[in-house]
């Protein structure tokens, strides 16, 4: 019982990270129908920026805010500078552009910061809670709770933005039908930039939250990206709610595999799940018009 609770909480805590990466991929997918392979790499880069600020000022929160702001700006700039010119061209072009971007940011990070593993601070303790002698594990630590709350708050704010604001309506209209949005006077290109910028922000958040566990090095986000991508695919790639649920399912499942079966297997289990979803529900568990409303 204790193990089960520990694995489940650990799974939720990992899952929200996959959910955040998945959510950022969904934002981009909805805005431009592009899968951004550089999304993890950009989150790695903003984490480096945060680490520099934190080391220079000794203030974690300043680094946190700078990373999110950098993610927002870099996301928007990437859309305008490298994605927009490839718009309307064959789909493979943008795929190659984003892979090239990934290689570029990982190479840049190596040149600027070196390739050694750096430890990354957490704002709160990573020691799990205990109820009497019942150990709840790392998934119950203040740091894990902070992680879960940050992602859920970010997702909630996005939901409010999309559902209840004029910018959100413009973004959704642009995503569903660029032609109709234009007919209504919406600057569709600007909405696309906003979508990428928000995705950059969510990606940067995920980087800040996961890097204390992985250490920071130029490839540190690669495996997280694959899992975040899996989360997004489970959810159907254009459903924000689907990405969150997909991330949680994946996180919990992988923790059960690690805990009950073997610690070498989670990557394999993640890929197996990805293949199963693609085989039997290629449009994802949530890709119906009913869940698209978010």
């Amino acid at each position, binding site marked *: 019982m204790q193990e089960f609770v520990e694995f489940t909480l650990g799974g939720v805590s990992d899952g929200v990270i996959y959910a955040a990466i998945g959510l950022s991929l969904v934002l981009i997918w909805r805005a431009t129908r592009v899968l951004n392979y550089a999304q993890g790499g950009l989150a790695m880069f903003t984490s480096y920026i945060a680490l520099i600020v934190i080391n220079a000022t000794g203030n974690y929160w300043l680094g946190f805010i700078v990373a999110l702001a950098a993610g927002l700006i870099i996301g928007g700039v990437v859309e305008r500078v490298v994605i927009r010119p490839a718009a309307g061209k064959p789909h493979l072009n943008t795929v190659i552009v984003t892979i090239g971007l990934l290689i570029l940011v990982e190479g840049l990070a190596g040149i600027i910061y070196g390739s050694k593993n750096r430890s990354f601070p957490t704002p709160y303790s990573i020691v799990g809670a205990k109820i009497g002698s019942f150990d709840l594990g790392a998934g119950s630590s203040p740091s894990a709770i902070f992680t879960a709350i940050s992602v859920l708050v970010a997702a909630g704010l996005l939901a409010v933005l999309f559902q209840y604001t004029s910018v959100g309506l413009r973004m959704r209209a642009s995503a*569903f039908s660029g032609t*109709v949005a234009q007919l*209504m006077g919406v600057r569709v290109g600007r909405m696309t930039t906003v979508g990428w910028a928000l995705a950059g922000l969510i990606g940067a958040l995920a980087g800040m939250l996961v890097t204390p566990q992985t250490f920071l090095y130029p490839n540190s986000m690669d495996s997280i990206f694959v899992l975040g991508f899996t989360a997004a695919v489970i959810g159907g790639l254009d459903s924000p709610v689907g990405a969150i649920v997909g991330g949680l399912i994946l996180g919990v499942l992988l923790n059960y595999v690690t805990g009950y079966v073997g610690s070498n297997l989670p990557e394999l289990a993640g890929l197996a799940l990805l293949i199963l979803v693609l085989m039997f529900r290629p449009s994802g568990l949530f890709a119906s018009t009913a869940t698209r409303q978010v």
Partner: protein
Amino acid sequence: MPASSLAVADVVAGYGSAPVLHGVSITARPATITAVLGANGAGKTTLLRTISGFVRTRSGQVRLDETSLTRLAPDHIARAGVAHVPEGQGVITELTVEENLKLGLLLRRRADRGAALEDAYRRFGILADRRRRHAATLSGGERQILVIARALLSAPRVLLLDEPSLGLAPKVVVQVMDLVRQLRDDSGLTVLLVEQNARSALSIADQGVVLNLGKVVATAPAGELAADVALRRHYLGF
């Protein structure tokens, strides 16, 4: 705001290498309804898509009053005050009825939006009943009403209507035509109306223009066109 005029002068436009419009000139005078008539393939829809910026003007001019719209982006033209109701489409099915209508309000002042929406629901009761439903659940006729209502909510200076009666019940067609006429009379709306059904279009239009194979073959007051038996037989089929 005084009523606006829309002038298309010597426009050549089309898709790919061959133009569809070969030097078309049409003026929609302020606060009038101009019916654009002609057979399938005459270039009626292409004309509207050229005015609203979706088809590139190769030569010639499109002007809204003193402002040139030639080769502006579609969203820019919409913000200038031209609302285009495309034929048989234009509803975003993933959004609710109310969200679709709110898209029309984006160009309005914030303070005017609530009242304008309530006014639209009063006019189109069928939309009020379905405001929380997804537009995907609407019938073809209901979608057409939704798109027209949405275009009107943007308080346009010029309204481009492409086959508004397509798929609508005759009773609703009358309702829509009455509304268009009322907007012309009360709000000074300038309308360019493309219709397959020449008879009903000419019944509310002030002026009629007949297109054939991308050229204007006749421009005259609506009554004269309706009375011109030879022209009617030749181009309009009634």
